[in-house]
């Protein structure tokens, strides 16, 4: 493992830019931390943290100058790999008939090279989950796969998880295990501010070599490990995953869904902030004289009425059926479909739900009032 100081991080930014990467990283915009294109280390949210609770998010000052002492903001990296709006094709009507062709601009035409800086372990798991959806099935999303293949991931482990985090119970954090080029752990103590760096790929190794990074001392490594050991304890929430898919599949008629019918507004915020939600719809646009048409893909939400519409009515007409669809998908059917949970425990859906519905509480309530599997036996899955 190597050690990087702040000036090494600046050098890393330069190297990435030299190599043609757009750096996307956390930065403060309008009272929230967002993942945006940044140019320098100065734009990272130094000394900023956030206080997150159900239906509440606010920034606060830290007592130190940590660059990654914050948690997740409302946006995930998803928007870069799976853009909210993407053109699928364009069509034109001529005297001879109709032509249909791939998009030339504003769509999948020009592919960026992204360096994601500050990817949290749960977020990296979310990317892994979307890989299963978009890049590993019978059909692949060519745009996703192409952009994905070109990214560099600089992960940052979580030493200070928040109130709405529950990655430890979903086994996606607070320390990242794979999928990164470099993984950093920020270590701050009196008079020193450094990052213990671990490479996870040849690209990462080469980056460290180009930065001429010095090896981290045994003591520095130990300090990083201690911080990560303690991180799980700071996590505000947890989900008991013991036979969870089975539990939810068996509780399609649970009274808790009726209770949710009263509270959930069906606004879809949870699906918009979730780093794994992948549903999309399509939109057809035409120019005024009807000679050109385009077809676009847009993020969608299973909370809308139209989502399940078929001639004659909506399959999921009630709010409870839609909340049930969403939560059962995340924590049960996803496992059948893709072999992993569709939830990484990032907690965004809890923070950004306007009425503070908490997926961990709902899972707990269903388990508590279920005749099946009401108690968890530890150590089994």
């Amino acid at each position, binding site marked *: 493992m190597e050690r990087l100081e702040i000036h090494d991080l600046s050098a890393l930014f330069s190297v990435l830019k030299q190599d*043609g990467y757009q750096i996307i990283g956390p930065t403060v915009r309008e009272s929230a931390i967002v993942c945006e294109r940044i140019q320098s280390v100065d734009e990272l949210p130094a000394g900023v943290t956030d206080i997150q609770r159900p239906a509440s998010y606010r920034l606060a000052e830290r007592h130190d100058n940590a660059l990654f002492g914050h948690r997740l903001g409302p946006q995930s990296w998803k928007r870069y790999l799976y853009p909210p709006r*993407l053109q*699928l*094709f364009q*069509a034109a*009507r001529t005297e001879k*008939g*109709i*032509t*249909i062709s*791939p*998009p030339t601009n504003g*769509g*999948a*035409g*020009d*592919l960026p*090279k992204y360096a994601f800086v500050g990817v949290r372990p749960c977020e990296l798991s979310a990317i892994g989950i979307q890989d299963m*959806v*978009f890049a590993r*099935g*019978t*059909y*692949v*999303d*060519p*745009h996703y796969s*192409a952009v994905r293949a070109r990214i560099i991931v600089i992960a940052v482990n979580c030493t200070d998880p928040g109130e709405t985090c529950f990655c430890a119970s979903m086994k996606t954090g607070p320390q990242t295990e794979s999928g990164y080029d470099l993984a950093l752990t920020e270590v701050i103590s009196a008079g020193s501010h450094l990052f213990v760096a671990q490479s996870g790929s040849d690209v990462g190794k080469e980056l460290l070599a180009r930065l001429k990074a010095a090896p981290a001392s045994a003591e520095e490594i130990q300090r990083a490990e201690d911080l990560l050991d303690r991180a799980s304890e700071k996590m505000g929430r947890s989900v008991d995953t013991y036979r969870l898919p089975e539990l939810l*599949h068996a509780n*399609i*008629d649970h009274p808790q869904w009726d209770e949710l019918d009263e509270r959930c507004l069906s606004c879809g915020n949870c699906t918009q902030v979730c780093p794994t939600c*992948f*549903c*999309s*719809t*399509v939109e*057809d*646009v*035409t120019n005024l004289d*009807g000679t050109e*048409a385009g*077809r676009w*893909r847009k993020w*969608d939400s*299973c909370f809308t009425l139209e*989502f*399940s*519409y*078929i*001639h004659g009515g909506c*399959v*999921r*007409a*009630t709010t409870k*059926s839609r909340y049930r*669809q969403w939560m059962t*998908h995340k924590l*049960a*059917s996803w496992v059948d*479909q893709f072999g992993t949970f569709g939830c990484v425990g990032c907690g965004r859906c809890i923070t950004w739900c306007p009425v503070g519905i908490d997926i961990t509480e709902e899972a707990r309530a269903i388990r508590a009032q279920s005749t099946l599997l009401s108690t968890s036996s530890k150590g089994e899955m």
Partner: protein
Amino acid sequence: MHVSITSQTMLPHQYRVQRVRQETPDTFTLELHPMSEASAIRFVPGQFNMLYLFGVGEIPISISGDPRKSPTLVHTTRAVGTVTKAMRGLRKGDILGVRGPYGSHWPIASGVGRDIVIIAGGIGLAPLRPTLYSIVADRDKYGRVILLYGSRTPIDILYRRELESWRSRFDLEIYVTVDRALKSWRGDVGVVTHLISKAPFDKQNCLAMICGPEVMMRFAVMELLKRGVPDDRIYISMERNMKCAIGLCGHCQFGSLFVCKDGPVFPYPGVKDLLSKWEI
């Protein structure tokens, strides 16, 4: 450094309308031909295509023609909403976008040596017609072949001339019923599921394939089970909202299943539990 890629998987091929036939007041059949040989589609009965109408939208429609007549594609559509109503305006020579074929198919091979029971309601006959073409072409391989078809009224009966000619054969049994009719109708009146108890087939050794409205399919399955047909001899074709047909948009989910890629044709035991629940 700029690499150009396309979302090829969602890019339709151009097909030309060769023929339009009005089947009933609200249902029409399009015969389509690929504009380039490379985009010819080979399909198996039960599969569907996504049909794109310029600037209007794209919808899933089953392939209702004869699989041996590829590359000609036949689609029978009921005009119910924006895209289907606009499609009704297509004329010979017009161009349509087509991508496919998608989805699972009817397990016709597993019906060899057995009685075949086809149960269709309304437009549900369209995805089942290719199975009849395949079976008729290989008639000796099967036992009795029975079609039970229910339609709203006599004028809504699909493929009428074809049904009449099939009915005149000695080796096909075609039963048609309507929900309501004027006195001039001499056939059965009542729901299609009522025909199941009367139809002569070997309940232990048959293959039942059902397509129609979801309630109709539920009742049809119940009747078949009541007669003693083993549940794994029953197949149904499901319908859900579909935007991509390739397992990426999430719209067609039915429990853990994606109707577009795991279905639309499912063996009944695979969907039994889901069918009994509300708003899945």
